[in-house]
């Protein structure tokens, strides 16, 4: 689904990080200091709760997010993912650690600066939409603009534009209660987009929607993200969703990241049994790129012959399921890179092998 390869976002630090999180912890309850100390020593969440009465929701987490990428945090309820995302705009105060946004440490930012950041840079979409029932759809979308101090006419124009971009142009004067869940979440998204944010925090935005609507919304989100190049931190409890949307995915458990990596890494090389257990039921055809199925070393000469012979070609970054229609028995498909240069080939057997969760791949 992501046909434009993202700017090389391996964590080399070569380019500016939009978000850099270092050693962030969040502890609820008294004895926070003691609890963080014990957590650093590796004591488990439950043992710390029993010993100090404090709940370690987020435990010494570090990661960074490049501009324009979708970073997904996946975890079950209670894993601390919602708390973590709330630390990023300080709806929750981190108990320890630093969070830098475009190089600015927001943990140290005073209240005034924080409000400015929330108005200008970071905005949020909520699981249960969090729309004001006493305001019309347009007034809801205008909310952040009103907080910015914009006049009525200007707000309204921007709100209508944002509503158009999520396909709800005709609904401006209705009330949220008149809308379906999917439409309400579009309003939530429009409210965030109306601010032209650089960073969008999404806390399980599609979890309350039914599966078909959810799939549509995922597609639309990718579409919007391609258009606006917004940096998105996306929280979900659904690994399929995480792998479909994420440029990078973090699997969270008990306040820690069990694994961070590209979707294909998570599927093909799960870091531990916990991650592996999740990856068992995912739809590999949608998550893995065609490139990951390349098994046989083929010389440039051989590939040229295949192409001359009329073999089908596919770009290596496309999801694997798109190759199903192209591959025929004994007739390999040539995999090309973004520039159209052949980089290898896949056969029906290779594809079956990857879908079945077969051998490891290094060519991702």
């Amino acid at each position, binding site marked *: 689904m992501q046909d434009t390869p993202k700017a090389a976002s391996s964590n080399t630090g070569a380019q500016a990080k939009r978000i850099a999180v270092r050693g962030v912890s969040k502890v609820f309850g008294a004895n926070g200091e003691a609890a963080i100390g014990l957590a650093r020593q590796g004591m488990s969440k439950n043992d710390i709760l029993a010993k100090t009465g404090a709940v370690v929701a987020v435990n010494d987490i570090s990661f960074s997010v490049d501009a324009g990428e979708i970073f997904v945090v996946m975890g079950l309820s209670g894993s601390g993912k919602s708390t973590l995302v*709330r630390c990023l*705009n300080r*709806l929750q105060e981190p108990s320890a650690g630093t969070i830098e946004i475009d190089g600015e440490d927001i943990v140290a930012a005073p209240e005034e600066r924080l*409000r*400015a950041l*929330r*108005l200008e840079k970071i*905005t*949020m979409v*909520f*699981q*249960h939409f*969090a729309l*004001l*029932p*006493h305001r*019309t759809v347009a007034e809801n979308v205008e*909310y*952040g603009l*009103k*907080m*910015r101090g914009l006049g009525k006419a200007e707000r309204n124009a921007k709100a209508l534009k944002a509503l158009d971009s999520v396909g709800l142009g005709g609904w401006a004067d*209705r*009330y949220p*209660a*008149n809308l379906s869940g999917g439409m309400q979440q579009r309003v939530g998204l429009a*409210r965030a987009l109306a*601010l032209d944010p650089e960073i969008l*925090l999404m806390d399980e935005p599609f979890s309350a929607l039914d599966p078909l609507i959810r799939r549509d919304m995922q597609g639309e989100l990718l579409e919007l993200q391609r258009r606006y190049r917004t940096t998105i931190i996306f929280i979900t409890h659904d690994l399929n969703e995480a792998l479909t949307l994420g440029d990078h995915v973090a699997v969270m458990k008990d306040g820690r990241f069990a694994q961070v990596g590209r979707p294909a890494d998570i599927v093909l090389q799960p870091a531990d049994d916990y991650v592996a257990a999740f990856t068992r039921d995912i739809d590999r055809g949608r998550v893995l790129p065609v490139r990951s199925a390349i098994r046989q070393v083929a010389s440039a000469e051989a590939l040229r012959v295949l192409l001359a012979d009329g073999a089908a070609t596919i770009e290596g970054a496309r999801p694997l399921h798109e190759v199903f229609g192209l591959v025929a028995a004994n007739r390999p498909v040539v995999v090309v890179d973004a520039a159209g240069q052949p980089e290898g080939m896949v056969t029906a057997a290779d594809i079956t092998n990857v879908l079945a969760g077969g051998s490891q791949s290094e060519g991702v």
Partner: protein
Amino acid sequence: MSSDALSGLQAATDIARPSHYGTLPLDDWIQWSVKDWLVPALRPFFRALQWPIAQLLDGLQSLLLAIPFVVLLVLAVFAAWRAAGRGVAVFTFISLLLLDWIGLWKETMITLAMIVTAVVFCIVVGIPAGIAAARSDRTAAVIRPILDVMQTIPSFVYLVPIVMLFGVGMVPAVIATIIFALPPLVRLTNLGIRQVQGELVEAGRAFGSTPRQILWEIQLPLALRTIMTGVNQTLMLALSMAVIGALIGAGGLGLTVYTGLGRLDVGYAGIGGLGIVLMAIILDRVTQALGDGHKGASTSGGKEG
């Protein structure tokens, strides 16, 4: 036999009773602390408190008595119709005609002025107190026992110090009414604000709102129905104080009932009571409809005619 044995037992165990050694003069202490200390010390403060109440009360009362009956009737019926629909408007029309016919129009207006004054001050004090309680658990913990005392202490108990501080008359009666009628408004304001969905308040913060903006844009509008219920309850309690207010010099319908009681004139007391009940029904229906009207607006549904 057994009664002898019992009284013997009682005599033997009496030494364990505090009253065996004398009576604690708590009543004297209260009398002393209120009469000789609290009243003189706080008299200037309470006198200052008295002033705005007296102003509003006098103004309202002279206004209500100056407006011709027919004009007020039309205004009241119109207001009832707009707020609560045709049924309540008809009821208001008949009730007000009846009140004038039985010769209690002036008393009704005096009571109305008293009630409205008390409720206005309840709103001025109660809603901010409720907001403060909703925003801080510590404030709530301080306010709650005060409200408990206000609600459970018999009003006769605080009539005495009120008379000491303010003398007798309409203003002290309004003050007693405020004390009696205030608690539900504070409680329901607090409750209404706390009941606002946490995610909505979070959204307010996430979109850069200050606490004050969250209060005005999100919490108060969504708590309005509950707050209006509080206003309604306060109004009803204030009306129920009309007769007790008459004990310390208030006029109006309460005085009619009280005079009827003194003369054992059940008819006179009866018409006073009828007046209070009719007023209560009108005010209740209208204020309830006002609260529901806000709910109607929030779902964009049509209001009932």
